[in-house]
């Protein structure tokens, strides 16, 4: 689990009045949930964006407006819907997902998908038609043309993934509802993320520790952004 060493590093940078392992386990849960959710969402959203960008079909406008609406969809409502789905009374009740990381991944997936799809689509449609035509003229198949366009749009897609990640990791309402903000008695997080930990500290009036956790969260987001931008810079030379 490559996220583990990262989570271990964080407490060495900040000295917090918490039990050992508390902060690193929270960072771990935050990264685990958000990265998996965004990865799954990217695997789902980018193909959808490619499909929408390369084909015309009746009702395409409707699909686009649904995606755009989804970008502004309140996260708390997503949390409620996922809660309804995974609650014991819900359609997925038998899986017993309530108050687990998996339920949190579900709600973050739902949250991250619209922005990733919409921004990827904008990037793909933004690629100059000449590029597409050139690829076809040079004897490329549709797939070749698509790959060329993807390569041109890679910055836009990286931005899309970042936007999705930003929405996922900074989200508090839905993960609080479906995850339950749980740590075990020894202070190791099970479903507590940085955002819900901040919420808990604020609830208890511990504003200073809340601020420190907030700084950790901001640092994480910046670090992930830096990594992705770098990744985009090196290009997709495969």
């Amino acid at each position: 689990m490559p996220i583990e060493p990262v989570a271990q590093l964080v407490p060495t940078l900040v000295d917090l009045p918490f039990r050992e392992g508390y902060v690193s386990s929270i960072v771990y849960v935050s990264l685990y949930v958000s990265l998996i959710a965004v990865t799954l969402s990217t695997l789902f959203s980018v193909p959808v964006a490619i499909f929408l960008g390369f084909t015309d079909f009746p009702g395409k406008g409707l699909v686009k407006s649904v995606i755009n609406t989804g970008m502004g969809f309140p996260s708390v409502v997503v949390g409620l819907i996922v809660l309804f789905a995974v609650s014991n009374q819900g359609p997925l009740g038998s899986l017993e997902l309530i108050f687990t990381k998996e339920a949190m991944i579900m709600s973050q997936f739902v949250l991250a998908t619209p922005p990733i799809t919409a921004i990827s689509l904008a990037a793909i449609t933004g690629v100059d038609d000449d590029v597409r035509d050139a690829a076809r003229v040079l004897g490329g198949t549709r797939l070749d043309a698509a790959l060329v366009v993807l390569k041109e749009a890679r910055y836009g897609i990286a931005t899309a993934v970042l936007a999705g990640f930003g929405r996922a990791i900074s989200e508090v309402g839905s993960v609080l509802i479906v995850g339950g903000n749980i740590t075990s008695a020894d202070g190791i997080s099970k479903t507590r993320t940085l955002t819900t930990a901040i919420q808990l500290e604020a609830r208890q009036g511990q504003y200073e520790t809340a601020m420190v956790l907030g700084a950790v969260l901001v640092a994480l987001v910046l670090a992930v952004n830096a990594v992705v931008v770098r990744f985009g810079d090196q290009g997709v030379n495969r």
Partner: protein
Amino acid sequence: MPIQRREVLTALGTGTLAGLAGCSGMGGGGEEEASAGVTGETLTLTTTTSTYDTGLLDEIHGSFEEMYGVSVDAVAQGTGAALESARNGDSDVVMVHARGLEDEFMRNGYGVNRRDLMFNDFVIVGPEDDPAGISGTGSATEALTAIADAGAPFVSRGDNSGTHTKELNLWEAAGTEPGGDWYQETGTGMGEALNIANQQGAYTLSDRGTFISQRSEIDLTILVQGPIEGGPEILSNPYGIMAVNPGVHENANYDLAMAYIGWITSPAAQEAIANYQMNGEQLFFPEAVSEDPDFQQYVPEGWSSDSSDA
């Protein structure tokens, strides 16, 4: 520092790339560490913000988890939400403090084997200068009436929690309908409500435990004491614990829930509750162990034996 930063970035990069490549197995090292030796049984407890935010549960659960080799997932929600989760079968055991709501929960068949667990009491807190002059009334209802008459700011939890339920009962007993600019419902946990009251110089009703645990952070002071300090009985705050009825929700972990109830009402756990202190003060008073059997705990609130054949 820059060296460390580079390490973090590199490690983050590896993590992100691996994550993006989709090779993150479920249940990573962090989980395994947290649940070493756990037989896989997990007890989900929904409870109130007051038991959780005071740190009591974290303090005492360790010994239960060790004893049975299980883990307890405590979800702090407030009494109303905790009971609702239990009704939906999303928890196995529920620890709350609103006897009326608990009786209803039991009557409707969602809960079984309710036990009295512990008590503390409610206090009315407010700013030191006490604009409504409630200090020294010694009566909760008179104090609330005075606050309403003065139109002094009052913060209500407004979240269907045990404390909120108690507050509404107090207004009812005082014969006053709260409302107006001075009455603010926050919809938050007790700690946050205390903070808001502190910021605004408002009065609020708090359980003594949460107030003590936050006393160092806020300038509010106790103006009407509860029964622990000789105040009126109406401010008592008993906590009960119930198992979710496995007949209603077959996925409820009934055996573990009963093990938990048995453990938390045992002399050892009750002693741990009594010994739990914050800022040098005892927060909760155990109530499950007594010299004589306490059959009264099984009698619903307000129940009387005046049946028609008497």
